[in-house]
């Protein structure tokens, strides 16, 4: 589903972020991306949804090298990738329903399906009761649920979550991760960048560890830190 081949990334100011990464994430897989701040987790995610272009190497999403996409093809790539952020990025002047429906509207989805799909997504994340609330009126956990609903409303095969629990308390974080697992079980590939040790340890999923722009560990059923046996 997602494949990185010899990917390096440096910014125009000369800062090198990623060095010669090779990575393969299969269809419907659930993986954690861990590592200290500045390790390159966010940049790696941005390469996948083409907010950044690698300096060298290939980023293949669903058999397409997204690094070579023309600008006008990028919107169509993004319709296949849902993105969840630490800071939610909800539109403050729109209700919960409008925020989620917006993702469908701007892709030109037919009117008839917008309501149905929006309600389905909101039902999945358990936010049907709050459809008329504005983001300001929601708790952090609720905002993140809306953000996830927006990311999956289009039924994308891939969901990227960048520090989805960064602003949440442990209980809520756990709920959000369970939700992401639920999304994964709906045949969606999920990649979660996180600092949250307890969740990574508890979930026992694949763990990819980045440090200084290099993959230093890629372990199935892993934990946040290498376990000394």
């Amino acid at each position, binding site marked *: 589903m997602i494949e990185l081949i010899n990917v390096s990334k440096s910014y125009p100011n000369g800062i090198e972020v990623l060095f010669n990464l090779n990575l393969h994430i299969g269809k419907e897989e659930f993986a954690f991306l861990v590592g200290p701040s500045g390790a390159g987790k966010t940049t790696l995610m941005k390469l996948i949804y083409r907010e950044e272009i690698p300096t060298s190497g290939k980023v293949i999403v669903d058999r397409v090298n997204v690094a070579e996409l023309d*600008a006008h093809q990028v*919107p169509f790539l993004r*319709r296949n990738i849902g993105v969840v952020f630490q800071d939610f990025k909800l539109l403050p002047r729109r209700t919960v329903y409008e925020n989620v429906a*917006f993702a469908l509207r*701007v*892709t030109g989805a037919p009117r008839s399906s917008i309501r149905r799909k929006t309600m389905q997504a909101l039902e999945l994340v358990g936010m049907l009761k709050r459809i008329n609330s504005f983001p300001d009126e929601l708790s952090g956990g609720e905002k993140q649920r809306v953000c996830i609903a927006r990311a999956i409303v289009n039924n994308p095969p891939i969901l990227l979550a960048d520090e989805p629990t960064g602003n949440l308390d442990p209980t809520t974080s756990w709920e959000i991760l369970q939700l992401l697992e639920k999304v994964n079980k709906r045949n969606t590939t999920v990649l979660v960048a996180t600092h949250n040790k307890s969740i990574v340890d508890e979930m026992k999923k694949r763990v990819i560890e980045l440090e200084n722009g290099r993959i230093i560990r890629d372990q199935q059923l892993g934990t946040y830190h290498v376990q000394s046996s």
Partner: protein
Amino acid sequence: MFSHLEFFLVEALRSLRRSFLMTMVAVITIVVSLTVFGIFLLLTVNLGHIVGTISSHLDLAAYTNYDLSLEDAGALQVKISKIPGVVKVEYISKDEAWKKFKEDFGTKLVLDEAASGNPLPHTFIVQVRSPELLPEVAKEISQLEIIDEVRYSGKLIQQMRTFLNAIRLGGIVLIILFFFATFLIVVNTIRLTVLSRETDIYIMKLVGATDAFVKWPFLIEGLLMGIMGGISSFLILKFSYDAISMRLSQALPFLPLVSDQKLLLEIYLGVIMAGTGLGIVGAYFSVSRVLKSEVQKC
């Protein structure tokens, strides 16, 4: 694309309403810029009209102190009218001239009529086809034996014409500069409204909206702001111009102000269209710039 028109319209109206203050600032800026532009346009047109009207006086006057009979005067009138370039010759006898003079100034002047008699000459008012012909026609007339003197305001007219041409040229240059300044102001104002919604644009792009889809609501918004600004500016210009030109024509009746409704209508329509065009172009430039910066990030 038309199936999405409703969405674009709703989005445009919604953001106009939700960022009401910003919209008002943008519309007021457009109104002020367009009004200043319109005032300048009206001033230039009127100044040109005034100078044009004054310099289009194509008269010259030929005087004689000979004692002319009516027949002599008639013959002379025919003779003058045959000079090339002459359009019309009007004869004012010395008696008529004196009568008119007394009518105009009689109450103000104390003249001893018996002592001085009628000091005025016979006058021929000659109209020529174009002002350039004045010196030549004047020369020919002055060569006629009976004519004592020919007068025309040749030098003044030439100066006026030079002035008129300068005004026209300067006017065009200034109008272009003004238009450019107005354009920059409007574009930058609309850019502020676009920048205030950078997050919206970012999210739209993130969930897979095409550039065209992102642009449309902003273009409609720019169009609506432009139309609102243009019409407000038109109303301000029209009512002020009507009021001012009415007062001026009462106070200075000889001042030939532009009252050609068709020309005025063209100017007003120009202002409305400039507003509309600036709104759309301003929005296009602004949103393209934000989108470009998003692309550069990619």
